């Protein structure tokens, strides 16, 4: 009898423990109707770090965009506008001078000084993860409190676009040094929202920074929630648990549109999806084969079936929102006859066997299946292999593949970022040129365009590069994906940023 009473006590203890623990997860910001001053934003993954130099992934950038500012901004129309730098001038081919805005406060109360900018950019240059974005920079000087001088190694036209990258967000030297290794969880910026708490894997909470230099934001609190399942994000919108959902699944778009409480904002993004060929390998070393496949792919079908129409057929390797996009390049038409002829020219009229690689991204897996079916029409027998992301990157970087499906986001909105890594022969392998494409002419033009300051001239060069690359077809560009955001109709002031990290400063209920 005594024993069972003890047992009961143990059980009761366990129970109360569970409930105490349960109670600990305090009632979070429940979605309520009416004029709210807090919003919940859902995206498909948790941020990795809020140290801009520690990571370069979209979910992290989307949060950091609210916490930090960059010297220069690229606005929603892809125009370069002032950020923390009020004005700037180019002293010579390699020297840029930036005049900082005065009286800008960091979240820890420090004032922004040129020394912070110098510290930030030098720290960035020392970071393995993001230094490639500013590798053109030779040195950074802070001659006065509000003046920063940046000297480049060689002329690099898109430097302003690169400085607008979220990875170039300006940090506070003191805060970084205080936090040490844990800075990624204690970010301090100058942005409209300051960091409050991070429940790992679940949510990040930010609150309005009232001393923000453009004025306090209207929203008092933002919570970024990690909702991995696309369908769950949509359901969350419908039930009102989520105010803004990034990346609504294509199948769910109609549902959001037709719901009178919700709206869907949709716009082209800076990304392109493509199928890469290994030009080092038989038979993809033959241009005709690559072109044949380009002709054999029915891009309309892919867009309709996989994306529910949420994309635009791609011809040029960079989309219309990117500087330097060549509007005259039309997508390869769907022409099975022509494809067969080209294969015949390559001496492969009977077709061949090959494989296509994809990672476990469901959209890519579906594309692979459609392409597999389409290439069968011209006698190419494709086997699909799904690889786990790590080995996918690793092995495509080493050139073990035949064909693969990937995407590229030209985050800076400048053609250099979108073309150089993918088509310059110095970038073969893991650096981006996973088709192992090599064309002397293209290399030369890419190098030249990079150093040309006159934008008309640059544009011309990029147009030419795109023509050559599309003709050579080391990849088959599939589509420029439109990005979308679903949200409650009551939300005002939201604009999509083509790079994907939308600014929430102007949002209100």
């Amino acid at each position, binding site marked *: 009898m005594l024993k069972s009473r003890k047992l009961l006590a143990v059980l009761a203890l366990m129970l109360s*423990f*569970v409930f105490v623990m*349960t109670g600990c997860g305090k009632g979070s910001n429940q979605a309520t109707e009416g004029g709210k001053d807090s919003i919940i934003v859902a995206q498909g993954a948790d941020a990795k*770090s809020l140290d801009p130099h520690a990571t370069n992934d979209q979910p992290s950038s989307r949060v950091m965009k609210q916490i930090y500012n960059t010297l220069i901004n690229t606005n929603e129309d892809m125009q370069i506008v002032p950020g923390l730098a009020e004005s700037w001038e180019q002293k010579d081919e390699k020297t840029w001078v930036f005049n900082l805005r005065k009286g800008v406060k960091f979240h820890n109360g420090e004032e922004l000084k040129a020394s912070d900018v110098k510290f930030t950019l030098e720290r960035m240059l020392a970071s393995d993860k993001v230094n490639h974005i500013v590798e053109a920079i030779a040195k950074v000087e802070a001659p006065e409190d509000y003046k920063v001088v940046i000297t480049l190694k060689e002329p690099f036209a898109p430097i302003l676009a690169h400085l607008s990258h979220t990875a170039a967000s300006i940090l506070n030297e003191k805060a970084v040094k205080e936090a040490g290794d844990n800075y990624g969880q204690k970010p301090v910026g100058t942005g409209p929202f300051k960091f409050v708490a991070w429940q*790992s*894997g*679940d949510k990040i909470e930010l609150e309005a920074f009232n001393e923000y230099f453009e004025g306090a934001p209207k929203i008092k609190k933002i919570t970024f929630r990690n909702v991995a399942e696309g369908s769950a994000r949509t359901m969350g919108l419908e039930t009102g648990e989520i105010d803004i959902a990034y990346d609504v699944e294509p199948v769910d778009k109609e549902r959001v549109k037709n719901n009178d409480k919700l709206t869907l904002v949709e716009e082209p993004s800076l990304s392109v999806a493509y199928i890469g060929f290994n030009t080092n390998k038989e038979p993809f070393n033959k241009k005709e084969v690559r072109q044949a496949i380009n002709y054999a792919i029915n891009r309309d079908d892919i867009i309709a079936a996989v994306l529910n129409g949420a994309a635009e057929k791609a011809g040029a390797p960079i989309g219309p929102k990117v500087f330097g996009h060549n509007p005259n390049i039309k997508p390869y038409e769907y022409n099975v006859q022509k494809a067969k002829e080209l294969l015949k020219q390559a001496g492969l009229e009977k077709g061949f066997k090959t494989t296509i690689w994809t990672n476990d991204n469901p959209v890519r897996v579906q594309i692979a299946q459609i392409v597999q079916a389409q290439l069968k029409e011209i006698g190419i027998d494709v086997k699909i292999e799904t690889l786990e992301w*790590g080995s996918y*990157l690793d092995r495509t970087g080493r050139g073990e593949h035949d064909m693969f499906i990937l995407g590229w986001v030209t985050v800076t909105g400048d053609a250099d970022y979108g073309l150089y890594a993918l088509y310059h022969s110095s970038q073969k392998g893991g650096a981006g040129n996973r088709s192992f494409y090599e064309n002397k002419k293209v290399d030369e033009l890419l190098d030249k365009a990079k150093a040309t300051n006159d934008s008309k001239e640059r544009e011309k060069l990029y147009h030419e590069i795109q023509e050559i690359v599309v003709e050579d077809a080391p990849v088959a560009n599939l589509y420029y994906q439109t990005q979308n955001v679903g949200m409650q109709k009551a939300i005002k002031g939201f604009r999509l940023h083509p790079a994907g990290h939308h600014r929430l400063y102007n949002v209100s209920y």
Partner: protein
Amino acid sequence: MRKYITRRLLMLIPVILGVTFIVFSIMYMTPGDPAQMILGESAPESAVKALREKMGLNDPFIVQYGRFVKNAIMGDFGRSYATKKEVFAEIFARFPATLQLASVGVLVAVLIGVPVGIISATKQYSLFDSVAMLLALLGVSMPNFWQGLMYILLFSVTLGWLPSGGYGSFKHFILPALTLGTSTAAVIARMTRSSMLEVIRQDYIRTARAKGVEEKKVILKHALKNALIPIITVVGLQFGHLLGGAVLTETVYSWPGIGRLLVDAIKQKDTPMVQATVVFIAVTFSIVNLAVDILYAYVDPRIKSQYK
């Protein structure tokens, strides 16, 4: 008893060492370069090479493993490659979510499973028994993630009663706990039933009846306690498994638990994170097992005497 517990805890050491070795080998042998994963798909190769060197990834396997063990003994399991967070800080940040879900799930399962099992056993071959056991079988047979999707569809989308996912308030618990609870309840109900059936046939139950003990008391006092060992075993095993993270349920309900942490870490080739998570899961599992064994002693004096 104390001696027994100490001995059991000491036995953990070789197991954990073995676990780390296996995990380390797995992470070493599987393709995918951590340096590349850290730097992302658009990093220049020179940077990847430099980082590899800096991280010591070019050292021979045994050197790398030795370094890991040395640091681990000093209590340093390192920082996540992906997030640069201290791995155990991250695990402890995630563990409450897992612990709560596992506890509530098992609680639901026990509250449903044990009574159903008992009633089924006492009314063997009755209508209740048949229906309950069929339902239990269905519970075992239904893929958890599918069940989860169906619940969301019904309770969140159609009826709008409960949130479709996330973590925080009590309401967020209900669906994940129900999903885990019902399938676990099915297992427990089946075990309770068969264990009770075994016990009810024993002579001492007949003795109790012959003493004039009420039927309810015969079942709850005399039979249940004897039937408890296999039930505790199953509950412990299920609890241990759930503490290792219910990846599928966590994914369906956006639950920030250990399971997703592990799967994400594996996918990102985040060796320190994988290593620490697996060690953590292994230790938790062993501790739950030990707790179960200690609980045996409270339930069954014969076992208690063996521990001395």
